[in-house]
């Protein structure tokens, strides 16, 4: 069974090590915060000047002066710090974040990322994605394996405008975990009940298949949220 969006986020949260400093993009990446393992110290960075963002604020916790980069009213964990955008992007671009989890329109086999713009008569807007893609020590992508129309999002070459070239190290999808190593796109894990052939068929770039591909260890649900699609 493929993972739900929450399942992808859960799977990523398991891979974040203790003492990591992580920026989470909008969409599936933002869900990672809900599944952080309690025994680890993982600090969430937000572009608008937070290190140590906590869960979203309950109605009675809302501070009108405290939002994250998604515009959500959030809380702060003990030990959090606040700063301006210049320092926030010094953190990003200076290589101080251990991890960033970003969404994607497309990822190429070499780790090129397209995530900010669909060509056409639209307003362009990039936010912090380009800085994060070049700056974080490890850029992981969280995405559905294909578009709603079934088109592969993992491709030989990106056709959408690039966010950054050769920046993605790992790709977490509803079907698989892949890693980018030089010119190789390696299939590391498949979702429970998903076959290597399924993944190959829905991927738009050649995969390197190790002798034994692991199956993800992931529960069906977590605290009432389904992690695997029915």
């Amino acid at each position, binding site marked *: 069974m493929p993972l739900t969006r929450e399942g992808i986020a859960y799977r990523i949260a398991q891979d974040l090590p203790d003492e990591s400093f992580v920026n989470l993009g909008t969409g599936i990446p933002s869900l990672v915060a809900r599944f952080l393992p309690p025994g680890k110290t993982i600090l969430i960075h937000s572009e608008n000047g937070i290190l140590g963002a906590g869960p979203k604020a309950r109605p009675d916790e809302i501070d*009108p002066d405290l939002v994250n980069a998604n*515009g959500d009213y959030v809380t702060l964990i003990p030990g959090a710090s606040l700063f301006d*955008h210049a320092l926030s992007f010094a953190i990003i*671009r200076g290589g101080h974040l251990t991890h960033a989890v970003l969404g994607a329109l497309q990822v190429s086999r070499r780790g090129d990322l397209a995530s900010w713009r669909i060509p056409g008569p639209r307003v*362009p807007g990039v936010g912090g*994605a380009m*800085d994060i893609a070049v*700056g974080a020590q490890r850029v992981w992508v969280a995405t559905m394996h294909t578009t709603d129309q079934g088109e592969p999002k993992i491709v030989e070459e990106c056709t959408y405008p690039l966010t950054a070239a050769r920046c993605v190290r790992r790709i977490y999808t509803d079907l698989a975990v892949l890693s980018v190593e030089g010119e190789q796109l390696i299939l590391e894990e498949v979702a429970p009940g998903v076959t290597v052939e399924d993944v190959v068929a829905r991927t738009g770039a050649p995969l390197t298949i190790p002798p034994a591909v692991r199956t993800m260890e992931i529960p069906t649900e977590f605290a009432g949220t389904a992690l695997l699609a029915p």
Partner: protein
Amino acid sequence: MDRVVATCDEAVADIPNGASIMIGGFGPPGIPVNLVKALRRRKLRDLVLIYCGGGTEEDGIGGLIADGAVRKLITSFPTHPGATAVREKYLAGELELEVLPQGTFVERIRAGGAGLGGFYTPTGVGTELAEGKEVRIIDGRPYVFELPLRADYAFIKAYRADRWGNLVYRRTMRNFNPIMATAANIVIAEVDEVVPVGALSPEEIETPCIFVDRVVEVPRDWIRRPAPAPR
């Protein structure tokens, strides 16, 4: 040295048509909404706004754009759901957009305030946003050259000011505000509260008064009563 002026209208009264104006804020925090509303009442034309988002009807920046007061918007993320005015004016060919990566946006403003001639950033290399810009290999890695950015005016939102214009921020109000305060010819701060000179500790002042020309006190109700429920 009293920087306090009585009203937002007075604070923006001398801004001419065609002025370039930086506006702080990210999400609701740190947007000087009452200065923007006063600016809108001026019914100016051909403004150049330097603002990270696209503005909304509520924050007044979207209203300025809808009014046709803005010729050009230098921005990073004008594509949030509420940015309807940007969308309409841009697609109608009535608004010029310069879109920058967010780190480049703030760093160009910092360079403008710090007297630097420009800088090289690794951000944007090989993308549409670097088209036409110089790329240089430094220590084996490609970087894009970016110029400093300054403005005629900056609209700043802070929490507290003293009468000299020293500013303190709270929570995520800082965002672009302390940086923009360094990079404009006339810096106007909207604050929740004006306190006596000497009441702010020297360590907590984030924007020293040397950067600030005018201060307007506009108290916010929420500071003293519970915050409203989320939308």
